[in-house]
């Protein structure tokens, strides 16, 4: 069983929390800007990756195949770009730390101190409404 996913963002985004609805809007490539105007860059692990599957189901409430289909639909009808795929969690941590506006996820156990990413708190749906 995969460990829980910790959402991380680049420090430039200057945010500390998101609602579950906003998280879904970002990973379904609908929300494209952070509140400070910076363009959102979404990073994901490969479709078969256990953490990706767990993240998709538990945090987005979607099956990985639904995400994949939605991204394909957006890319080939011109409505949006798809997330950028990284190989593993180490690379995820590096690119999110180095890319302004980046968002991604790693295992909760992963150490992030001093690398330039912020761990986001995700509030349950309805909390912000």
């Amino acid at each position: 069983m995969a460990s829980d996913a910790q959402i991380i963002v680049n420090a430039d985004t200057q945010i500390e929390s998101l609602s579950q609805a906003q998280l879904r809007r970002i990973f379904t490539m609908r929300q494209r800007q952070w509140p400070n105007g910076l363009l959102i860059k979404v990073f994901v692990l490969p479709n078969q990756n256990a953490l990706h599957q767990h993240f998709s189901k538990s945090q987005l409430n979607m099956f990985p195949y639904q995400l994949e289909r939605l991204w394909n639909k957006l890319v080939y009808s011109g409505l949006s770009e798809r997330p950028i795929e990284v190989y593993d969690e180490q690379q995820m941590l590096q690119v999110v730390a180095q890319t302004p506006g980046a968002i991604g996820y790693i295992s909760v156990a992963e150490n992030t101190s001093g690398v330039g990413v912020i761990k986001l708190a995700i509030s349950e749906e309805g909390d912000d409404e």
Partner: protein
Amino acid sequence: MMSKRKGIRIVAGLWLGFVMSSSVSAESDVAWHGFVSQGVMQASKSNFVNDSGDVSFKLTEVGLNLSYQISPTLRLASQAVYLNGGNRYPEGVRLDYLFLDWNLYSAENWQVNLNVGRFKNYHWLYSSTRDIPHTRPSIILPQSLYYDAFRDFAKGNDGAALLVQGDGTLGSWELNWSYGDTPIERALTKTLLGDAAGGRLEQIFDHQLSFYFQPRDSFSQFGVAFVNSDFEYLKSEQDAFVDGRANTRRIIVNYKYSAEFWDFSTEAIHENVNYQNMLFPGYQQELYSQGVYFQGRWFATSNLTLLARLDLFDMNKNGRGGEWLELQSNGQIPHYFGYSDTLTLGTTYRLADNWSLQAEVHRIKGTGRLSPAVLPDTEINDSEYWNMWAVQLMYWF
């Protein structure tokens, strides 16, 4: 005055030059993707793919798209495709879409985008990616709604579209509106009307509105779409047809359920078509046609998907058996041109990350969804029951 079509070509040329210049291609905000696919198919006893009914390789779909994020709120997106589907639609290279996507408003839980240019039809379940092989459930889509002869003006428009999307306490929703038209090539006029049509068919406008809703924490999605479109036919000097008009109004409802190892989709259409003149002076025809498909997919393994679908279409809901066609044509058009019911069994095998192989068989009763659409080819399509199979290899990046 410069025609809209010429304008689109000029913008396409400028865009291509812009992207080809090295200053832009070095930017990370330019993204490109594409797909290549080749298949083989056979539709015996019908002219669906070719007139002979022999095995055909006219199942080629190739595309390349480019997008450029100009600013956080402005994006330019384009795609060119080459399609060869035999008799299903005219073969050739097409500018599939080229539009400016402007994020007009963005709040925490909803947003508004405006698309201007040539954009896709976002209103039906598969309309925006009907030519993208790896996004389709099957090689041939259910013809009740995705009739191939109507493909070119059902795939999108030149005009403007407004897309509103949000997440609320009840769930997530989408409201799409579009207005525009589609240039109709000579070859498409023949696909629709037949070789005897020497004149020009034009789409005056296409107006669509759709609403989708997915309840919170639910795997169901509900949708409804409305279409209103006008066409005009201008005859040539040597022409079997006369000046005329046609109007179509459609209501489409759809439902989708996505479980972890299977999904179910259904889409139903109720259409009202009006013809005035066109076939001969004084010709008036009003038809209410109906169609529906039910489709189930089972994700048997992570690489293997199996599909079963039943697709039903009646050209005239007040004469589902098609006898009215025989009466109107003095027996020249058989009754089975009044409907088209199809049972499809298919499979998709994911060979590698970006490679798939799709295969399917269709058993069809009726010839109501073959081309030409208005004056059917009764010589080749002389069988009420016919079969079709297709296999397609697809790669995307």
